């Protein structure tokens, strides 16, 4: 939907301008289809649950999701007992009756525990780049679902880049340095990723084929893991999406009927005038 709209808006270049400009050049995002896309798209909750497992096992050590609470996991189809168990697995900070700082097992009403005490700690532990919170990541990036999907699979061996890719990479370097002869070079501690703006990302490759084993036996190659993860992150970004679309269908149908009636009334009233 978003894609169609962006394309449709090309005629309204005025409106589409910011979206296009923010997209930037570089490598095209990988194309795939997510079930939640389109005006009537819904979440694939099996994928969302698998994606939560990927997040929990591979991302949560560095990336917070501070806007989510464990109780929210009920919405992706986990049972109350499962949610309680997930929450209880985590120790959260609290203050006891006597005012002392303690750690207690989490409850469903607790927010997802953040891996770092604060932003400075996160920065210090991660080579100076603090891992962004993932609660809204899909909404916070242009074409966010496809972006995260591509980013997970964008780690590559720089030496294998084609001549055309090279040209794009050198273009980045030229823009960054202002030097027309500059060529692309990696900074230390960075990783080459064709889908990250500037192509150098602090995060080492987080996901590889077979990294997570699903209990339901779903295949676990990198594209599948990435897609499941994105399904989870998309749900986390907008848990009310299905409610929004469902309400929307009813509202639009109602408005069409009302508009039709209003038009008929207007025609009747004006019939004698011209």
């Amino acid at each position, binding site marked *: 939907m978003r894609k169609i*709209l962006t394309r449709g808006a090309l005629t309204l270049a005025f409106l589409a301008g910011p979206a296009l400009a923010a997209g930037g050049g570089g490598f095209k995002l990988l194309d795939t289809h997510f079930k939640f896309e389109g005006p009537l798209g819904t979440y694939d909750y099996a994928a969302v649950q698998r994606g939560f497992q990927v997040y929990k096992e591979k991302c949560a050590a560095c990336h917070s999701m501070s806007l989510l609470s464990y109780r*929210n996991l009920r919405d992706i189809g986990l049972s109350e007992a499962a949610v309680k168990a997930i929450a209880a697995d985590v120790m959260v900070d609290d203050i006891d009756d006597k005012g002392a700082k303690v750690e207690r097992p989490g409850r469903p009403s607790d927010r997802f525990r953040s891996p770092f005490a604060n932003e400075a700690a996160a920065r210090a532990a991660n080579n100076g780049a603090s891992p*962004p919170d993932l609660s*809204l990541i899909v909404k*916070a990036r242009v074409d966010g679902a496809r972006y995260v999907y591509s980013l997970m699979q964008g780690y590559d061996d720089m030496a294998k880049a084609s001549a055309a890719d090279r040209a794009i990479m050198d273009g980045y370097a030229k823009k960054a340095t202002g030097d027309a002869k500059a060529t692309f070079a990696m900074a230390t501690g960075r990783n080459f990723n064709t889908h990250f703006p500037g192509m150098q990302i602090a995060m080492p490759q987080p996901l590889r084929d077979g990294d997570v084993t699903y209990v339901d036996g779903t295949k676990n190659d990198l594209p599948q893991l990435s897609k499941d993860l994105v399904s989870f992150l998309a749900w986390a970004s907008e848990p009310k999406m299905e409610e929004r679309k469902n309400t*929307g269908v009813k509202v639009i149908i109602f408005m069409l009927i009302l508009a039709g009636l*209003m038009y008929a009334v207007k025609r009747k009233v004006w019939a004698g005038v011209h």
Partner: protein
Amino acid sequence: MSSSQGAPAFTNPIVKWIDRRLPIFTFMHHEYGVFPTPRNFNYWWSFGGIAMVMLITMIVTGIVLAMNYTPHVDFAFDSVERIMRDVNYGWLLRYLHVNGASFFFIAVFIHIFRGLYYGSYKNPRELLWILGVVILLLMMATAFMGYVLPWGQMSFWGATVITNLFSALPVIGDPIVTLLWGGFSVDNPTLNRFFSLHYLLPFVIVGVVVLHVTAMHVAGSNNPIGIDPKGPQDTLPFSPYYVTKDGFAVVAFLLVYLAFVFFAPDFFGEPENYVKADRLVTPPHIVPEWYFLPFYAILRAVPDKLGGVLAMFGAILVLFVLPWLDTARVRSARFRPIYKWFFWLLVVDCFVLGYCGANPPEGYFIPLSRVATLYYFAHFLVILPVLGKIERPLPLPNSIAESVLGGARK
């Protein structure tokens, strides 16, 4: 369906009792019931009423949102997300409000360009027009401050950039910016006062709208052929004719608005604003909301800081004197064969400015935005005054009734 101006005879005793002491029913009857309205309005005339509906929508959704919003830099972003996730129908209220701002501006921009095309700002409606420009200015201030409240990246950096505009003023610039911020950067005091003003200004807008509508009821509405009604045959009572026509227009407009609310709620938004404000990192590409883009382009088109700021404010201020810049006596562009073309050129020019404002100021956007800025001012300051003198208008019809019933409609 009589259109007589006499006091209506109310039958309901309560209505009667109230009306004798406070004639609100008589007032409504005169101003909205039998009010003689030109019979030839097209749908472009519905956008005033549509804008009113949007204003009410914004106020009602805003009041409920304010009940759940926390104007503090540490909590603002999270409180907005709490509205999106935990408050019952909070997502709907917020999407209505966010998209409502865009659709309010769409309605008002169409309303303004309708006024430009049909010469609605001319004698005796100069003050009516000026009040409208005041409303536009208030809307811009309100929208700007509202955009700061979610405390995302664009909120913070938009606030920083726009408040810094005032630093361009010589001598008083920096003290003014400090005063606006209540500190040495955009911070908690800034957020608090913006919230306070964002809540207040809509009610000021309502006040000016009342004046705007009152002035309109004194002079009467302009109409597509721009000649005054000469008698009852030229007008229709507002009710039921325009109640039903505007009613249909409102529903149709809301239909489009709601389609965005439910199916593309983030279309007008920036992904960057879903990132919490970070005062150490400026997003690579800051853009204001789309309705500010033409003005933003004018700001950047002038290669001088103070000059850019003056040009940007000038782009709105010039509208205040428009009634005296346009020297043509004929109102409607239907009878102004040359002006008609310049009007559409101005529309295109505004879109070009918007396009420039949305893109980074580099490459061909720089000369393009400069040409478009020059043309914008030339339209008002050169073309309109000169055109009025040299253009030969088409013959005007004798009356509205003749033009409507004679079938010679364009």
